[in-house]
């Protein structure tokens, strides 16, 4: 009996202890550092490399203690987890060897980031967007990078001056200190670059477009006419599935509509797409609540009208409003769509067709709308992507060094073009990709090798950004794949056929020629710094905006499915009325004021 009693007591205590332990802290409470760490480490100062500065090529050397091997985590809302993938890649291995670290990547979503921020358990280096800046600063989660200037020559290079000024003035809660860096700043000397092809515009199945005689597409009406003609000759897939012109993706808010409108009308969107920036005048325009701008066709309304036309022509997928990106990818892969506004979803179709027949014409290609999404000058870096070093990190100094290296010209080059050896200095004294590297990219049998090389890896790109226009100090482009002699090498058979048919060198020549002829525009006139310097949006405005976005999303079916112009006008009037009742005017007023304030501030910065 005594034994039973004892067991009962022990079991109860064990259960209780188990419950409490499960809810307890993991004990991973790193002491906030705030200053340079590594007091216990040996002061074995090592040259941490000679990463120059983007296009500056100053060759500054970061000095720091690298004697102890440490694990460093990089987390962000645009990053993917490193486990389960090819990791570390050649590019990451170089960083690891250079700084004696093991790097792990962590993907954050809003919830996990907020949870980690609340608990002070974020990664060593964190990437956030605008909505978390206030929390990071007020919660003192970021170290002041200026305290580590001696080990961060790339961050504090002359070429980063404007970016640093913006960070200090607008992203420091008035402290005037620099806590954040943005990736890949466009620097002086950047060249015009259109790449080999475009990612957004009038997307088409090349084989069918060619079959209908590849009529010139100057506007949405031409595009719809082409899609209609294509559907007539290809009403269903080889498997008997119905074919449509395209569909919307419903898991990205209003993106389907405003992105289409942006490239058609010449705007760039702010986060969420409720407000857009005119790429030629740099004015802010209320995208959805356009009541105050009756003469301006805003991207949202342009996009909605385009989808309405598709609907009336019977070209739109009837499941348009329930299709999510996953379903969209699936239908593209099955060949059920003839066009689109972006080429992100066509990848599997193109890949499958190319695998089955390397010389197939069944490939999606992109023709330019009025505006090509190219040549935007991010002189203050990418907005909405802010990196900081966590004050809770046990290895602040090492994290700063790695973050600094991610900002260097050297890392930008290897992230885009591969580690040295994947490219080499030619007889002309300039860097060139090796024939083996080019073969590795284009040869499907070497796909795994390509992945392992880490070139154009999405995680690395998220850290380093995309600025294809920048030139390196060695006279070559940072991204050697953008060198004119390499561009055409990566084209598919269908793209080559397209170039031959239309008399182009690369597909993007259509945009380049259009710009030269004055019929198209790109983003060279956009002042992205204005977006970067906007003050933090207050919660009451955010609440109004969120509500307006929801109202707009819910109104889209009645707009897109309008059977006549009158019906469309009535649906539009109702939406505008609903938005007005949801205080859209208060939001517009706030944004216009904030925009003007930001513009003045940018002018004062001299940019």
């Amino acid at each position, binding site marked *: 009996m005594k034994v039973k*009693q004892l067991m*009962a*007591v022990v*079991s*109860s205590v064990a*259960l*209780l202890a*188990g*419950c*409490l332990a499960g*809810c307890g802290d993991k004990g991973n409470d790193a002491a906030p550092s705030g200053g340079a760490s590594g007091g216990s480490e040996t002061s074995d100062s090592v040259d941490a490399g000679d990463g120059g500065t983007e296009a500056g090529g100053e060759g500054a050397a970061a000095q720091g203690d690298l004697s102890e091997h440490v694990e460093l985590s990089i987390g962000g809302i645009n990053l993917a987890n490193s486990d389960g993938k090819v990791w570390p890649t050649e590019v990451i291995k170089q960083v690891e060897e250079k700084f004696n670290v093991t790097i792990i990547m962590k993907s954050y979503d*809003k*919830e996990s*980031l*907020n*949870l980690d*921020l*609340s608990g002070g358990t974020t990664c060593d280096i964190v990437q956030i967007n605008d*909505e*978390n800046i*206030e*929390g*990071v600063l*007020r*919660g003192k*989660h970021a170290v002041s990078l200026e305290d580590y200037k001696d080990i961060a020559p790339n961050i504090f290079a002359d070429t980063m001056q404007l970016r640093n000024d913006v960070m200090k003035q607008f992203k420091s809660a008035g402290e005037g200190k620099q806590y954040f860096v943005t990736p890949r700043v466009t620097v002086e000397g950047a060249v015009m670059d259109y790449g080999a092809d475009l990612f957004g515009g009038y997307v088409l199945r090349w084989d069918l477009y060619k079959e209908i005689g590849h009529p010139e597409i100057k506007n949405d009406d031409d595009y719809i006419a082409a899609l209609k003609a294509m559907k007539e000759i290809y009403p269903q897939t080889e498997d008997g*599935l*119905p074919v449509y012109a395209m569909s919307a993706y*419903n898991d990205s808010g209003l993106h389907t509509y405003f992105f289409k409108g942006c490239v058609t009308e010449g705007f760039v969107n702010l986060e969420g797409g409720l407000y857009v920036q005119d790429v030629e005048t740099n004015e802010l325009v209320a995208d959805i609540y356009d009541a105050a701008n009756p003469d301006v066709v805003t991207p949202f309304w342009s996009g909605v009208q385009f989808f309405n036309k598709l609907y009336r022509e019977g070209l739109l*997928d*009837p*499941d348009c*409003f*329930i299709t999510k990106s996953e*379903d969209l990818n699936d239908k593209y892969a099955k060949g059920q769509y003839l066009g689109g506004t972006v080429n992100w979803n066509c990848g599997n179709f193109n890949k499958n067709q190319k695998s089955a027949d390397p010389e197939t014409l069944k490939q999606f290609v992109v023709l330019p709308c009025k505006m090509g999404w190219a040549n935007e000058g991010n002189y203050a870096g990418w907005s909405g992507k802010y990196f900081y070093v966590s004050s809770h990190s046990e290895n602040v100094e090492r994290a700063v060094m790695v973050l600094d290296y991610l900002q260097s010209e050297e890392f930008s080059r290897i992230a885009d073009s591969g580690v040295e050896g994947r490219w080499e200095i030619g007889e002309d004294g300039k860097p060139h990709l090796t024939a083996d590297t080019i073969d590795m990219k284009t040869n499907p049998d070497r796909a795994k090798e390509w992945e392992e090389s880490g070139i154009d890896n999405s995680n690395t790109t998220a850290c380093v950004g995309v600025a294809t226009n920048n030139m390196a100090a060695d006279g070559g482009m940072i991204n050697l794949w953008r060198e004119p002699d390499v561009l055409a090498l990566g084209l598919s058979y269908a793209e080559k056929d397209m170039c031959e048919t239309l008399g182009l060198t690369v597909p993007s020549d259509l945009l380049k020629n259009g710009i030269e002829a004055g019929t198209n525009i790109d983003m060279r006139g956009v002042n992205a710094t204005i977006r970067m310097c906007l003050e933090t949006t207050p*919660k009451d405005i*955010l*609440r109004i905006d*969120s*509500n307006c976005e*929801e109202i707009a*999303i*819910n*109104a*889209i*079916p009645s707009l897109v499915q309008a059977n006549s112009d009158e019906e469309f006008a009535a649906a539009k009037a109702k939406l505008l009325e609903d938005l007005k009742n949801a205080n859209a005017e208060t939001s517009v007023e706030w944004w216009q004021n904030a925009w003007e304030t930001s513009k003045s501030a940018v002018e004062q910065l001299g940019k």
Partner: protein
Amino acid sequence: MGRPVACARKPKKDYRLLLMLLPFMALVFLFSYVPIFGWVYSVFDYIPGVPLFECDFMGLDYFRIIFTDDNVLRALKNTFIFAIIGMALSPLPMLFAILLNEIKCGPVRKFIQTFTTLPNFISWVIIFSLAFALFSTDGLITSLLVKAGIGSGTSVLSSGSSVYWFQTFLAQWKGLGWSSIIYLAAIAGIDQELYEAARVDGAGHFRCALHITLPSMIETYVVLFILGIGNFLNTGYEQYMLFKNALTATNIEVLDLYVYRIGLENMDYSYGVAISIVKSIVSITLVVVANLVAKKLRGSTVI
């Protein structure tokens, strides 16, 4: 004359029982009472990453916003509609259990029970994928209905007017078998002599079910019904989040989904908590009222 041994041991036994109860009390305390501390977030302008008491104090501002927010009213209306339909259909598991009990062939009964219980373990994400494959415009069922000349070809997934019955149908399909388990247990507890006596009196299957099985389960049903009223507004959000699209949004957004959207998607945590508090107060009120009604009608309370 000494006290009986049993009486002397009684307090000791109670102490041990209480001790064994402790872990479960701790669980309830940790997961049901400690989170109530979170209510304090509703009076601050909480910003993730900033210690709570360093955030701006807002008082009852967020509660005032609730009364000016039309979306709360819309979400509340949807929640009530789903809850009332759910309540109206709450006898279904009981009736299903009775029918299942009437199947005398053991393997068939077990097969049906397993077959109807399994959907409970399928996640809503999978169910959405299945529903998309079956009910989209090109889906199997939609196509069959069109071929049979019954349907118009419009997907039920993109029909705002079908939201209430279609979502209820999915929820019932998923939970019917699982919910009937407790009634099957209740049936197993019914004294078999009652059935024998009824049969002697000439009662058939139907009369046995109507006069013995059903009344024996009413007590269980009432308890579950009243507890269900406590969860009246707790509809959850996964199902509705997945099936929400531009065409169904107006009717499908329930209070839990709205709180999710406000709190987690828009990072307006404090306002989300304020709505949740109001929801909890309404739920508690409903339970108390239901309990009082039960006491009036049956003479006994559940809680």
